[in-house]
């Protein structure tokens, strides 16, 4: 297993957010973590990433415990995080945003370069000298993903890439995720948008109230409409 | 059974005032002067804390308004022979008037900028007193020999006089802290943006706070001028602001009495330590750093008691 999250409990100050979340991602997989707003998806990602360290439980990365490590060390060990709030650097140009994020992969190689990223995101090349803050929502989302790729991660944590985007852009982002899968990027995806998640991933975890309520293949999830109704319907 | 908590606050206040007055018959002359200084330091700290504790505006130039009060008394009484009974009441008026001018600029900016501006404007007033207006203020030498009326010239009488003024100021400030003004001020401290959207004119409210704080600082300064019969430009210097700041920090910034007690204790410590070393600022600096780092979740923890205290006072 590439990533194993084992029974983590995470708090923000006094509030208990995650109640024993466990999940696994293997190399080459695309796994989704679906749930409503506030179900604990982002907190799970932040726990993995060290931005909100779990109080108990373990996060194993390539078999080694990484919980409690600082975020930069976790990133250097090969996990790339794409936050939902699209935290691009608004006063840096598109190119600078990408350059800041550049680092070698854990194998010392760098398959992702600015040129490769521009190939996949031609829009970004067109705007390479524009300040990040002046991009549209969809472009900012692309830049966030592209920026994380520049770190040559072994695993991509994608937090709600479709959130708040118009359907046309969501489709484009979906295409992009499929394309990344073909590039052998391992992906853990957090989503509210079930259709989007099912279209791109093989396995799914359903999270609600900080607990994993279901895990299985996407086909199994689709075969359980009552679960979808209970935890995911709006 | 009546517990301590249900006894109304004013009863405690009355007891404290009587006890403090009673002290005047016990203490010697030196202690009475020290006690007067402590009361003045307490009043100065309370005047700052209205702005810094309740208002959340970190004010680094408060000494200027304290000094202005002192100079007002000194200049009027010494240079123009105006009776003290007229000069002293004018001290807070002058401080408040200049507080209005300086405050008007300072409240235009929040947080860090506010602090920067108060320090800068405080230093301007210091420079004015030190050099620009040296003809009136005596420049570096200050003003010596302020005439004091017979009735308050003894240490005991002056202590009682100071206690009377202190008590009046305390009662006034106590009333203000229970009134909508300070409730709204606390709301602004918590969330100025939201306060706007419930219809509060935030800047005007903060400016009023600044003026009130300057007013009471002026009284403290005036009292100090009479006690020492001397004023010097150091009273306006920014390091003079540091003792009420640390006093408030030590005593608890979200209460009325805390800063007064903290500042009074700090003054005692100052005098005590000065017997051994001339490096009091070092002690003050280290103490400030310790208090800041020791405050566990910032000073937030201390506020949790406030609502309870407020309820018990109702």
């Amino acid at each position, binding site marked *: 297993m590439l990533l194993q999250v084992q029974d983590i409990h995470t708090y923000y100050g006094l509030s208990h957010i995650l109640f024993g979340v466990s999940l696994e991602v293997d190399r080459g997989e695309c796994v989704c973590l679906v749930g*409503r*707003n*506030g179900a604990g998806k982002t907190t799970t990602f932040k726990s993995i990433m060290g931005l909100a360290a779990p109080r108990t439980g373990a996060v194993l990365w390539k078999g080694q415990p990484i919980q409690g490590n600082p975020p930069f060390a976790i990133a250097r060990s090969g996990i790339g995080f794409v936050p939902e709030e699209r935290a691009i650097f608004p006063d840096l140009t598109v190119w600078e945003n990408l350059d800041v994020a550049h680092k070698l992969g854990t194998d010392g190689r760098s398959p992702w370069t600015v040129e490769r990223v521009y190939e996949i995101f031609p829009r970004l090349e067109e705007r390479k000298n524009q*300040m990040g*803050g*002046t991009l*549209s*929502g969809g472009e900012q989302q692309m830049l966030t993903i592209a920026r994380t790729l520049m770190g040559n991660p072994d695993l991509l944590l994608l937090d709600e890439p479709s*959130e*708040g*985007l*118009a*359907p*046309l852009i969501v489709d484009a982002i979906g295409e992009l995720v499929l394309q990344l899968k073909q590039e052998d990027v391992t992906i853990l995806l957090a989503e509210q948008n079930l259709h989007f998640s099912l279209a791109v991933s093989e396995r799914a975890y359903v999270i609600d*109230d900080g607990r994993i309520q279901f895990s299985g293949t996407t086909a199994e999830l689709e075969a359980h409409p009552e679960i979808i109704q209970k935890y995911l319907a*709006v | 059974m009546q517990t301590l908590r249900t006894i109304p606050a004013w009863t405690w206040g009355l007891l404290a005032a009587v006890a403090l007055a009673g002290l005047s018959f016990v203490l010697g002359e030196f202690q009475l002067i020290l006690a007067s200084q402590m009361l003045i330091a307490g009043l100065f700290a309370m005047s700052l804390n209205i702005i810094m504790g309740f208002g959340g505006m970190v004010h680094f130039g408060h000494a200027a308004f304290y000094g202005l009060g002192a100079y007002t008394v000194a200049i009027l009484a010494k240079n123009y022979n105006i009776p003290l009974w007229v000069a002293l009441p004018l001290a807070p008026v002058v401080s408040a008037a200049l507080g209005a001018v300086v405050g008007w600029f300072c409240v235009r900016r929040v947080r860090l900028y506010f602090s920067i501006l108060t320090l800068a404007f405080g230093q301007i007033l210091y420079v004015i007193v030190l050099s620009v207006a040296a003809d009136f203020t005596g420049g570096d030498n200050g003003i010596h020999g302020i005439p004091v009326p017979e009735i308050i010239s003894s240490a005991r009488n002056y202590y009682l006089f100071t206690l009377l003024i202190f008590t009046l100021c305390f009662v006034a400030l106590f*009333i*203000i802290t*229970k*009134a*909508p*003004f300070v*409730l*709204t001020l*606390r*709301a602004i401290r*918590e*969330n100025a*943006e*939201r*306060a*706007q*959207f*419930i*219809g*509060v*004119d*935030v800047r005007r*409210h903060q400016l*009023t706070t600044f003026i009130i704080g300057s007013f009471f600082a002026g009284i403290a300064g005036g009292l100090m001028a009479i006690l020492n019969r001397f004023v010097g430009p150091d009273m306006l210097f920014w390091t003079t602001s540091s003792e009420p700041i640390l006093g408030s920090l030590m005593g608890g910034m979200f209460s009325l009495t805390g800063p007064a007690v903290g500042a009074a204790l700090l003054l005692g410590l100052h005098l005590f330590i000065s017997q051994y070393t001339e490096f009091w600022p070092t002690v003050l600096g280290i103490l400030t750093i310790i208090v800041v780092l020791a405050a566990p979740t910032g000073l*937030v923890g201390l*506020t*949790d008691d*406030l*609502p309870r205290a*407020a*309820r018990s006072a*109702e």
Partner: protein
Amino acid sequence: MTILSIEHLNKAFGGLQATNDVSLSLEQGELSAIIGPNGAGKSTLFNLITGYHRPDSGRVIFNGRDLIGLPPHEIVRLGIGRSFQRSNIFPRLTVFENVQTAVLSHYQQSGHLWRGTSRFGKLNEQVERILHSIGLWDKRARLGGKLALGDQKRLEMGLALALEPKLLLLDEPTAGMSSEETASTVALVKQISDEFKVTLLFTEHDMAVVFGIAQTIHVLYYGGIVASGKPQEIADNPEVQKIYLGEKDAKSRFRG
């Protein structure tokens, strides 16, 4: 009768046209929603109406009065209340004090220097009424910042109600809520519109909430209004379906 009319409103931040020639009007007592993807300019529009930002051009007329250039606190006093997407309260004031501050402000008593807050009998009764109607009376002595998220948003609405607004702007009242909390918030919104007779304008992501309670829906897309109309019209509007809802989705949501 039209209570609010927005005419050709424009606002750009840097190169980004956040509000693009927006015009819309609200009738007295109407319950309307603004929908649109994140970044479509919903919050900016609220900020423009309430004077937090100043538009580059255009007019906002409220009860016959042009609001442009007025500071937020004066706009509030004219009768526009607002609640925020992230709960935006006074964390270290008790629940009671939170609402009390707003009520005192509404009755122009914020600057009162000598009368104790406990001695404003009539106004405190008003605070009590509001706390009852938002269901927080039992939690009145708790610090606002220590409430659960759902309760904070109720308190948030309580602050807005304390101003007895003629128009109330709610920014995503159910964002981040569980389904139960959402249901009770929807009930609260309905109750408010009945009980307090205010005109309501809200933004929302949750289409069930939008189609469940709104009488009129405005669709905002890249800063501009794409469509305005009754829920059925919006659901059937081909352009809206294309850019936002997705054809199938919209119909099933509307039926649901």
